[in-house]
């Protein structure tokens, strides 16, 4: 972990309530897709934990949904402003898995940490199927970004069927009848639970929680796992499928 001041390169709305913020500066503590940062927001006591969507040597990109006071204030920040960030938090996804046919499933804002992961896995020559799941057509974002990585199998799933496959990610999997070797998922808990029950292969899920510190000292986000008590912010946010107690 490192506390850094990063400068906003841009902060733009993608669709109503969903924003993409790109920050420049020392991001050397981010080493793995699926890690997160804890963002200080003016006049609010707790930092806001946000998944890192993408990063390179000198910048990182965050995707966030405006849900309350913190994310509202974040959405009003603009280019050139400095942001106080605790960087390089959490474990991130395992990227060196020995499987080739891989499923990535993201629900809503949960697609954020899968973007850099998709890039990383593609560079390792993996065959990827990406399922981006939303409630309805007007809530779809980042589908083009995923396709621009050069992935052929990017599926859109909407609960109401207004675009792409109708239903949930589990419906898509049943239709496709593909055999996956491994999966990664991030999204609402009911989605992650259904997915873990549906697929036979091993995999990992990224969880979220209200956090006090974000770096393991307050025990505010501990959950019971099959390996005992684990902190979402420290041992997680990514957990192996078999470690999660549903």
């Amino acid at each position, binding site marked *: 972990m490192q506390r850094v001041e990063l400068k906003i390169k841009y902060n733009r709305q993608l669709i109503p309530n969903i924003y993409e913020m790109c920050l420049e500066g020392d991001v050397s503590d981010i080493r793995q897709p699926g890690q997160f940062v804890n963002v200080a927001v003016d006049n609010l*006591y*707790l930092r806001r934990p946000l998944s890192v969507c993408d990063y390179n040597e000198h910048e990182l990109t965050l995707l966030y949904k405006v849900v309350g006071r913190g994310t509202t204030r974040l959405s009003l920040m603009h280019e050139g402003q400095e942001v106080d960030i605790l960087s390089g938090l959490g474990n991130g996804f395992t990227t060196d898995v020995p499987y080739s046919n891989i499923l990535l499933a993201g629900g809503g804002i949960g697609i954020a940490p899968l973007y850099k992961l998709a890039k990383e896995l593609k560079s390792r020559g993996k065959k990827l199927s990406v399922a981006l799941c939303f409630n309805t057509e007007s809530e779809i974002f980042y589908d083009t970004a995923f396709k621009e990585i050069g992935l052929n199998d990017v599926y859109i799933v909407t609960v109401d069927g207004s675009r792409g496959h109708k239903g949930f990610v589990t419906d898509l999997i049943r239709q496709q009848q593909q055999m996956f070797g491994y999966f990664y998922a991030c999204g609402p808990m009911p989605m992650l639970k259904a997915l873990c029950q549906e697929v036979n292969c091993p995999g990992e899920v990224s969880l979220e929680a209200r956090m006090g510190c974000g770096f393991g*000292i307050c025990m*505010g986000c*501990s959950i*019971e796992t099959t390996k005992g008590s684990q902190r979402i912010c420290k041992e997680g946010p990514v957990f192996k499928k078999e470690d999660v107690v549903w």
Partner: protein
Amino acid sequence: MVAKTSVNLSGVYLDNPVIPASGTFGFGKEMAEVYDINILGSISIKGTTRQARYGNPLPRIAEGSCGVLNSVGLQNPGVDAVVSTELPELRKIFRKPIIANISGFSIDDYAYSCEKIDKEKQVEIIEVNISCPNVHNGGMAFGTSPDMAAKVTAAVKKVTTKPVYVKLSPNVTDIVSIARACEDAGADGLTLINTILGMRIDIQRRKPVLAQKMGGYSGPAIFPIAVRMVYQVAQACHIPIMGCGGVATAEDVIEMMMAGATAVQVGAENLHNPYVCKEIIEQLPVVMNRLHIDSLEDIIGIIK
């Protein structure tokens, strides 16, 4: 003249009065990756109980203006694991006196855990938590009755020769009566205050934010309350006080000491700013110089 920051807590000498409060610093190892924790006066380690505890269901964290509401519920690996694993790990990275924070659900529990901890050489002070608002049938129940507070204090004093500091709850009508009961029962010192019982409601979902509904509120919002209680207790008692509650700056440390604290614990601020204790320790001599304070011991309880 070099500013003298050292203080004496019942014969335990600290280089400086800055101590991370129990539950906001774990057992030190996460923070040791952030800065050299040996600059601290001491550490009050995560509260320990007889049995391991998972704690309360999530969400356990909510926010208020200038503070955090938590309902963690004394999650800890149990006193045996603290003795066998956590303290040996801490010893490798921290060479200063340690304060062990003990909680329980019966007088017997408190005595059991303190007896175990008593054998730990590096633990130089035992802090008895009778004020956790997040556990039922225990914790705060002992801290809201002078009689129960005295019984716990007496039971713990019987099983240890180390200085015993009782950590008091602010969720009482008259903290002075509790403080006096502990002093009369043999407490060597007092820590105050623990968190203030609070609650938040998610008005969109029409549900409490915390799964446990209520939790303990801490952070700069409670600092004036903590100063007031430290002052009241200091006026009434003759044992040292560790002041705690919303401390965020070197100025706050000095204010708390002027109110009557001999040492000062920093809690919630560690979550918001992991470097806060380091920053306070670096700033203390600067602020002392500005205020013409040669030695911190000169200002303890100067407000009468």
